């Protein structure tokens, strides 16, 4: 009996890398927050006697 599905190849798209865009954005958001607060305290320290 003919098997019509046998000749068809189903293509399953597999991403070779997971998307990390959101992770990148949140890492840099945290990074810049740390830098801004660190600089704020540092300049406060430098400005005071």
């Amino acid at each position, binding site marked *: 009996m003919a098997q019509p599905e046998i000749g068809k190849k189903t293509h399953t798209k597999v991403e070779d890398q997971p998307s*990390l865009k959101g*992770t*990148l954005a949140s*890492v*840099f958001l945290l990074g810049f927050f740390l*830098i801004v607060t*660190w600089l704020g305290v540092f300049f406060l320290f430098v400005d*005071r*006697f």
Partner: protein
Amino acid sequence: MHIHKFEKIWLIFGVTTLIIFLTVIGVSAFYLGNQPPSCLATVNPENVDTTAPFNEPGLKKVEGKEWDYELVFVASAFSYNPGKVEVPLGAKVKVIATTKDVIHGFEVAGTNINMMLEPGFISEYVTTFDKAGEFLIVCNEYCGVGHHTMTSKIEVIE
């Protein structure tokens, strides 16, 4: 080992900022010579009143040192001696303080002068008073029932 491109980016970013922060601390300590306020200088807490410089609390002009004045404070429950002191604007001052009894704090509000005074140890801080005005000194280490009344004042005058 495979590392995602984004992972490389934030690893480099994180390591770089860490190196910058640590470099700033290193320069502050080893090039500018910053150190903890209480750095191995000791005094017998029972003889504070008879030991120089604590036998004469207050502002004193000194010659031949890196600073122009020495400002000596003696703390005890629940006051500072002197209770008020005037410092000329722009003077480079070494603040020298200790305590006669328990642990006290020595915070000049709104400045970087913030030290812990421990019995038996001398706390020091060198700074240039470059802003005129009145500065409140408060005790920020709980020292007993009169802790909240323990204050002094520095007046920076032109």
